[in-house]
């Protein structure tokens, strides 16, 4: 098991390297560059040229063949990508071109916001989605089953954008129960340690901040969790139904094992493999959905930030942000694979 995990962790390296190459290449394939985006309608030839030079954007992207022809081996490697890779290996994600501050600094502040929202949403999606799926499977074709399945179909098809606006209209404007957006009221003082507001406020025993942070996270969580919740509920139901057709379940029933015990002890554990897989994959989609949720609820995470950076061609931010998201995604899926071994003793990792 340990060897397997180490092997998988090592295999993350080429994956991440691949991500850097693809992101690097595609960013530079789209026309328009940071200089043009920065200058807007004002751009003059000289300004654009000077800014390109200032940020090294006039260098070859991957390898400098011209330099090689002239026998300049150092120049051959003195390219945008290799310089970036060199810095990356030293743990330096570079500076934002427009903001001129280290990407790592902003990531440290914004990434926890996205992860807090994503984990919280996934948590809600699981604790609601799984039981709903189980109950639907157990009472197949009942009114309850049809209602929840129709409900989850609606959930899957719900555009986050629309749902978000509706939630704000109902809970913030009409009922005035919850704030319309943001992460914390601007008057609330909170000492940041992990930058996960819910955790920080608990560590520092700042309950005012905790309640405030919780009030702020509720609406975006509902918007973000709806789709994965619906998917998980549907997957749980169908997976449970499959398992309940199995011989050993029939045997358990025949032996007179209590229904509850059949469901939770015999069926659920085996039904969980595909559910866990879906949860892992949904987590990736959740991070993608965070762009919209963060925009509507003014949530200062990385989704909207990376998206805006693509538009402004702030290459270091896009590179840093995608790298981190890719890393988290790979890691989550590694956890999913490891959990297979726990759920199904037949699966061995050696």
């Amino acid at each position, binding site marked *: 098991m340990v060897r397997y995990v180490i092997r998988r962790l090592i295999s993350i390296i080429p994956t991440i390297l691949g991500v850097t190459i693809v992101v690097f290449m595609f960013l530079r394939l789209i*026309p*328009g560059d940071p200089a*043009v*985006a920065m*200058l*807007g*309608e*004002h*751009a003059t*030839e000289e*300004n654009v040229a000077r800014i390109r030079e*200032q940020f090294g954007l006039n260098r070859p992207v991957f390898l400098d063949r011209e330099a090689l022809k002239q026998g300049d081996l150092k120049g051959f490697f003195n390219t945008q990508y290799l310089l970036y890779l060199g810095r990356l290996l030293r743990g330096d994600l570079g*500076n934002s071109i*427009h*903001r*001129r*501050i280290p990407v790592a600094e902003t990531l440290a502040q*914004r990434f926890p916001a996205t992860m807090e929202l994503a984990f919280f949403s996934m*948590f809600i999606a699981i*604790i609601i989605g799984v039981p709903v799926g189980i109950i639907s499977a157990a009472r197949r074709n009942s009114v309850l089953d049809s209602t929840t399945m129709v409900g989850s179909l609606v959930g899957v098809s719900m555009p986050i954008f629309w749902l*978000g*606006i509706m939630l*704000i209209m109902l809970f*913030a*404007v009409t009922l*005035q*129960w*919850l*704030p*319309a*957006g*943001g*992460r914390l*009221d*601007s*008057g609330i*003082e909170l000492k940041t340690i992990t930058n996960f507001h819910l955790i920080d406020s*608990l560590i520092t025993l700042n*309950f*005012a901040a*905790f*309640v*405030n942070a*919780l*009030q702020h996270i*509720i609406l975006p969580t509902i918007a973000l969790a709806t789709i994965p919740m619906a998917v998980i509920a549907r997957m749980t139901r169908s997976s449970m139904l499959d398992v309940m057709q199995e011989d050993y379940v029939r045997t358990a029933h025949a032996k007179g094992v209590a229904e509850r015990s059949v469901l939770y002890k015999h069926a659920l554990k085996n039904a969980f493999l595909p559910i866990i897989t879906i949860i892992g994959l949904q987590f990736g989609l959740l991070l993608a959905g965070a762009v919209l949720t963060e*925009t*509507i*609820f*003014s949530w*200062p*995470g990385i989704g*909207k*930030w990376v998206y*805006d950076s*693509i*538009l402004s061609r702030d290459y270091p931010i896009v590179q840093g942000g995608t790298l981190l998201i890719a890393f988290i995604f790979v890691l989550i899926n590694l956890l999913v694979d490891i*959990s297979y*071994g*726990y759920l199904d003793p037949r699966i061995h990792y050696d």
Partner: protein
Amino acid sequence: MKGKSLFILLAAITILSMVLAACGGGAATTEAPPVEQPTEEAAPPVEEPAPTEEPAPTEAPPPTEAPQASVFIFGRGGDSVSLDPAIVTDGESFRVTGQILESLYTFAPGTTNPIPNLAEECMPNESATEWTCTLRQGVKFHDGTDFNADAVIFNFERWRFTDNPYHFPEQVFEYYEAMFGGFDDASIITSVEKLDEYTVKFTLSAPLAPFLANLAMDIFAISSPAAIEKYGADYGTPAAGAVGTGPFVFKEWVEGDHISVTANEEWWGGRAKVDEIIWRVIADESARYLALKAGDIDGLEQATVEDLADAENNPDLYILRKDQPTTAYLAFNYKIQEFQDPKVREAIAHAINKQGIMENFFGENADLATTLIPPSMWGYNDTIEDWTYDPELSKQLLTEAGFPDGLSEVTIAEDIVDADNNVLFKAGDKIPLRLYYLPISRFYFPTPKEVGEAMAADLANAGINVEMTTEGDWATYLAARREGRLAGLYQLGWGGDNGDPDNFTGYFFGGGAEPIQREGWYQNPTLAELLNQALVTPGQENRDPMYKEAEQILHDDIARIWLFHTRVPLIFSAKVQGYQPQMVDADNYQDVTVTP
């Protein structure tokens, strides 16, 4: 086994989180009733703990804090890039720096007339190549250091000299280059001398007519030299903020979320009426408007047409319109052979029903444009008569130009290439007539695609069939425009920086005698010469007729089709009074009051 402990850990976290969520949920609902009355912003944090946990200590402070701090929360679409105004070009940065920092001159409220600010006056010599400025005395930066001649010189030298230790290599001092001709020896300002503690003399290499208007720009606001020395390249970042002499002092900047400033008790112009301003980032327009309705914010800029209509009928809200000097236009790419014929250009000008489009898409948020320079600026030529909307005349003109069957296809007159010299359109190629619309909404063009479609319909009525298209996203579109490869008619616009007409007509057409690549290869040496002359002619009274003449030349040449001068809508809660929109530069917040 490890798996099991992991599972137990996860289960523990899950249970803990459930408990917390339950607690929080309860707390949220107990919080609900008080919100019934207006809102929360005037009553900040300290009051909240009371219902839940904290014992006595928090009870005590409120009475001493009795006169509640008045806070004005403004919702905006994006975050500031930096609070060092010298190195940015975006309005969201100036919106904030304009409150913290001040320039030597400023613009009189609601106009584009430069008036003294940190300088008491600046007087030119006869040839307008030397300006002597007397500075306001007794002014202090927020860090307690003195504002004086040394501070002015420190800032100007930092902007100008690329080898200045504070002209950091990773920073781009874009506007200095644009407004003062370049850095180092290319700079029009050749020296800034200290005559005494409160007098400086600017020496220019040539007369620069918009000199005072330039000084008044938010970009050239004076920062505390001590702060720049202290923070180095971090000056202007969220960690350091900005240190100036303005009516508000930097408090905090939470990236992507909000920036706040507090009233400067010592401000030379008298303390601001409001205690604190918070600019909150709410990117989505609809969400921003809903936040205003929910009472989370007190004012906002830019809303959808539907939300504006809703606000007009809401007694709790009111709308102000910011009369920025802006102009939206439709440009020709002169590498299209047909566009080189004035008759074809005129036919297009007569085919578009600008009035109809304006009524349908803008309402009160725009005026029709007949010239590039808007009526609110000096240099505006009010004698020019716009092209009438007359599709029949368009058809007739097209027939005279040799297109009796209308125009759907055009010919490339010269190769159109990209930045790497790859030929995109070859001379002689026939391509469909294109109308490029902006890929994003800009303040001068809020609904580019819809307006483009309406134009296309109008043009079709006159027998001109266009293919609607765009070019990638905003940066791509700008790059294509800059390289002169938007091969057809294309939308764009402009928002003025300093209220000087050179910043309009001069920027676009004052290049050399060669075709201007960035301007769709437009070429008019007479116009360029006139505009370059206007730039160095002293005295507004002498320059004004020159810009009027320039507009006449552009009109006679049907160089472009000027569409609209838009106004940016601002919506406020009825609790807010005293907000003063400016034409250029940041709006004024000193007189804002928020009734609880």
